[in-house]
C-alpha cells in the first residue's frame, strides 16, 4: 500500500541512517506489495541521506526566516544555535509548513 510506503520513507528520513531504518523496518512491514518492498529495499542510500539533509536545511531556513531573533541568535552564537537546533530537530515532529509557526515552536528550545 502506498500509505505504508510513504510512512516508511518519511520515518526513515527522520533517522540519522535512513537506509538502515528501511533495511530494518521494510522486511517486517505487512502492508506492502512485493514490488513496493523490493523498491524500498533498493533505494539509493546516498539519495536518502542527501534528502534528509535538505529536509533539515529547509527546517532551519523556516526558523531563521520566521523569526528575526532566531536569525540574530544564529549569527551571534552559531555553536549554541546549532546544538539547540539539533535537539529541536531530534525531539519535535516535522509538522510546520510556514516559517512563523516553525520559529515559534523552536523558541521553546533556546
Amino acid at each position, binding site marked *: 500500500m502506498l500509505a505504508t510506503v510513504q*510512512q516508511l520513507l*518519511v520515518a526513515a528520513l527522520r533517522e540519522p541512517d535512513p537506509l538502515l531504518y528501511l533495511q530494518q523496518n521494510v522486511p517486517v512491514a505487512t502492508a506492502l506489495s512485493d514490488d513496493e518492498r523490493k*523498491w*524500498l529495499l533498493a*533505494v539509493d542510500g546516498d539519495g536518502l541521506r542527501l*534528502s534528509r539533509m535538505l529536509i533539515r536545511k529547509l527546517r532551519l531556513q523556516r526558523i531563521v526566516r520566521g523569526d528575526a531573533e532566531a536569525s540574530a541568535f544564529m549569527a551571534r552564537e552559531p555553536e549554541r544555535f546549532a546544538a539547540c537546533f539539533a535537539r529541536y530537530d531530534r525531539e519535535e515532529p*516535522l509538522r510546520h509548513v510556514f516559517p512563523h509557526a516553525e520559529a515559534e515552536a523552536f523558541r521553546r528550545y533556546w
Partner: protein
Amino acid sequence: MPALVGIALQPDDVFFAHNRDLLERAELFEVTPETLWGSHCQPTAGYERLLDLTQRRQVPVVGHGVLFSIGAVEEPKRRAAWLQALQRDANAFGFAWLSEHLGFADAGDCHTAWPLPLPPTDEAVAIVAKSLATLRSACPTVLFENNADLFCLGEPMAQAAFYARVCEAADAAMLLDLHNAYAYCRNTGIALRDFLEQLPWDRVLELHLSGGSDSDPEFLPSGRSMRLDSHDGAVPDEVWEAMELALPRASNLRAVVCEWFPDAMNDAAATQFAADFDRAQKLVKEFG
C-alpha cells in the same frame, strides 16, 4: 503561436532591484502563491507587490505550487484552507493555469516541505489524479511538474511512463522542468536523452529553465556528488541541449519560464539570468 518566455517572480527586494529590465521584458509571469502567504494562508506584503506588478504589466500569469502534496495518500490537514487560498489567488492574479510538483510531502502526520518520489503504481496514479481534480476548483487547467529527485522507487526510466499515465488518468498537462530532468537522470544514472524521448510530449504545456549545483562531496560518506535543483547558476549545456530537443516535440507548448532563487541573486547572477532569458527567447523564436 510561439510559446511565451517568462520568469518566475520572487517578491524579495533583491530580486526586484537586480532584475528591473527583465521585469519589464518578460512575456509571462509565474507566481508561487504559498511563498506569498503568512499565517492562515493570508497574503503578505510580497503578495501585494507581485499583484501590483502583474496588474500593471498586463501579461499572462500562471500559478505554480510546491506543497499541495498531490501524491500524499493521507490528505494534509491544511488542504481545505490551502485550496481556498489558491482559489482566491487564482482569481486575483488571473492564473491561466496552475501547476504543482509531483510527489508527496506529508505522511504519518509529518510534513517534509520537500516533495518526495512516488512509485510508478496504479495507486499512485489514482491519488495524483484525485488531487489534481481537487485543484481544478482553483483553476480549470492543471499541470504537474517533474522533480529533481535524489532517489527513486522502481526503475528510474519507469517515471517517464508514470508521467504519461498521470496525464491520461487526470486529463492533466505537464510542466517539464528541464533542469530537474537533467538532475534526476544524473542522480539515478540514466541517460537524459533516452528519458526525454519517452515523455508524453503532446501534454507538455510549460517548460522550466534554470541552473543548479552539485552537492559538496563532503556531505556524503561515499564522497559522491549529486545534482541539486538549487536555481542558483547558469543553465548548463546539457539543459540547453534538452531544450533544443524539447521545442520541436512539445507541440502544445505555451510557455517557457526561467527561474533563479533570490538567495543567490546579485549583479553577476542577474546578468546571467538575463542572458539565459535572451537565449531562451531566441530558441523559442527559431523553433516557433
